[in-house]
C-alpha cells in the first residue's frame, strides 16, 4: 500500500521531473527520480528493482503538472506485479493523453490568466489604494496570483496521484476524473473576458496619459499607432508568423514615425 509519506515524497520529487530534460528520452531521469523510493519499497531484491528501473528508463514526456496522474497508475501496476508489456503500453497511452490535457490547461490558459490577474490586481490596487506606495501594490500583484497558481498546481499533482493510484491498471485511469473539456472551455472564456477587460483598460489609460499631452503632430502619431499595430499583427498572423515579426515591423515603422514628431 502507498502511505501518506510515499505520496508526499512522490509529489515533492515530481517538482524536478524536468530537471534532466534531454532530447534523447525527455523526462526519463526525472521520472525515475520521482518513483525510485516507492520502487525500492516494493522491490526488495536488487535484481527485480534493476529490471523495474530499466523499464522506466525509456522515453517519458508529459506535462509536468500531470506527471503524478501517470506515476500513481504506474506504481499501482508495479505493486500488483503486472506484466511489463501491459505497464509500458498503459504508461505510454496515459503520457500522451495527459500531456495534451496539461498543455491546454496550464500552458495555454492558466499561465495567461495568471499574467492577466497580475495586471488587473496592480491596476486596482494602484488606482484605489496605494497610489503613493507603488512597491506595495506591485508586490501584492505579483505574489498573490503566483501563490494561487502554485497551490493549485500542487493540489493537482496530489489529486492526480490519489486518483491514479485508485484506478491503477486501467487505460483510461484518471482521464474521467474531471470533465476536462468543460474546464478547458471555461478557462478559454475566462481568458477571453480578461483579455478584453485589459484591452479596454489599456486603451483608456493610453488615451488619458499619452494622447492629451504633446504637439498636434505627436497626438496624431500616437492616435494612429494602435491602429497600425493591430493591422500589422493581423497581417503577420495571417501567415502564422510568430510575434517577433509584427514587433520587428513595428520597430521599423517607429523609425519613420519618430522623424515626424
Amino acid at each position, binding site marked *: 500500500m502507498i502511505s501518506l509519506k510515499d505520496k508526499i515524497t512522490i509529489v515533492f520529487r515530481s517538482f524536478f521531473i524536468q530537471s534532466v530534460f534531454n532530447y534523447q528520452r525527455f523526462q526519463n531521469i526525472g521520472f525515475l527520480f520521482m518513483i525510485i523510493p516507492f520502487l525500492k519499497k516494493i522491490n526488495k531484491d536488487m535484481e527485480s528493482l534493476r529490471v523495474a528501473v530499466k523499464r522506466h528508463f525509456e522515453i517519458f514526456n508529459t506535462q509536468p503538472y500531470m506527471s503524478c496522474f501517470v506515476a500513481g497508475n504506474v506504481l499501482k501496476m508495479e505493486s500488483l506485479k503486472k506484466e511489463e508489456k501491459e505497464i509500458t503500453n498503459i504508461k505510454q497511452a496515459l503520457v500522451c493523453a495527459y500531456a495534451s490535457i496539461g498543455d491546454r490547461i496550464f500552458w495555454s490558459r492558466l499561465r495567461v490568466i495568471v499574467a492577466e490577474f497580475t495586471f488587473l490586481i496592480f491596476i486596482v490596487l494602484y488606482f484605489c489604494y496605494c497610489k503613493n506606495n507603488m512597491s506595495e501594490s506591485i508586490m501584492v500583484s505579483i505574489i498573490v496570483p503566483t501563490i494561487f497558481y502554485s497551490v493549485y498546481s500542487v493540489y493537482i499533482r496530489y489529486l492526480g496521484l490519489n486518483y491514479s493510484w485508485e484506478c491503477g491498471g486501467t487505460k483510461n485511469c484518471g482521464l474521467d476524473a474531471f470533465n476536462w473539456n468543460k474546464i478547458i472551455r471555461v478557462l478559454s472564456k475566462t481568458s477571453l473576458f480578461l483579455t478584453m477587460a485589459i484591452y479596454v483598460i489599456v486603451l483608456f489609460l493610453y488615451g488619458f496619459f499619452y494622447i492629451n499631452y504633446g504637439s498636434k503632430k505627436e497626438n496624431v502619431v500616437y492616435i494612429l*499607432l494602435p491602429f497600425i499595430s493591430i493591422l500589422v499583427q493581423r497581417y503577420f498572423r495571417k501567415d502564422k508568423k510568430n510575434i517577433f515579426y509584427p514587433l520587428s515591423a513595428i520597430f521599423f515603422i517607429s523609425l519613420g514615425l519618430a522623424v515626424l514628431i
Partner: protein
Amino acid sequence: MKIFYFILLASLLNLDNVSAFQFLISRPSFAGGILGYLSGYTIEGFLIGLLLELVILDFTPVGGIPIPNGTLAALVSVLLIRDFGSDFAFASFFAGIIAGEGYSYVEKFMRSFRNIFNRLCENMIEKNDFNFGKLVVYSLIIDVMVFGIYSFISYKILYFIFLKINSDYIMKVFRLAVVGAVFVTLTSLYFKFKTQVGKND
C-alpha cells in the same frame, strides 16, 4: 547590489522555468518586479516584465519546444535600466527580448547536451546505484552556471551596443515601438482566445 547577486538571483529563479517547481516565479513580471525592487526601479522592472510576459505568452512550450526565456529578458532589462536610468526602460524592453530569444538556442543546446546524463544513468543502473538525485543536482548546477554566464555576456554586449546608439531619436523610436508592442501583444492574445472559444463552441 553588485551585478553578481542579480545574476545569481535570476539564475535561481530561472530554475523554475523548466528544471524545478514551475510555480511561475520565473515569469518576467515576477522576476522583473523583484529585480527592479532590489535595484531601485520597481515600477520600471515590473511594467517591462509584464510586457515581456505578454510577448512570451504568445509561445506555448508544448512537446519540449524551447521558448524565449522571460527571466533572462527581465534580468537584462532591469540591469540596463539600472545602468542608463528609467528613461531607458523602453529600449531595455527590446534588449530583453533579444537576450531572451537568444537563450532559447542555448536551452536547445543544453537539452542535447543533457543526453550525456542518459549514459551516466545507464552506468549507475548497471552498478545498482539508484541515487538519481545526484544527476538532478548536477543538472541544476549546470543550469545555474550556464544561465549566469550567458546572462552576463549578453548583458555586457547589449550594454555596449546601447551605449553606442543612445540618442534622443533612438529613444523616441523605442518609446513608439513599445507602445505599438503593447497593442500587438494584446491583439494577439485577444484573437488567440477568440479562436479557442469559437472552436470550443
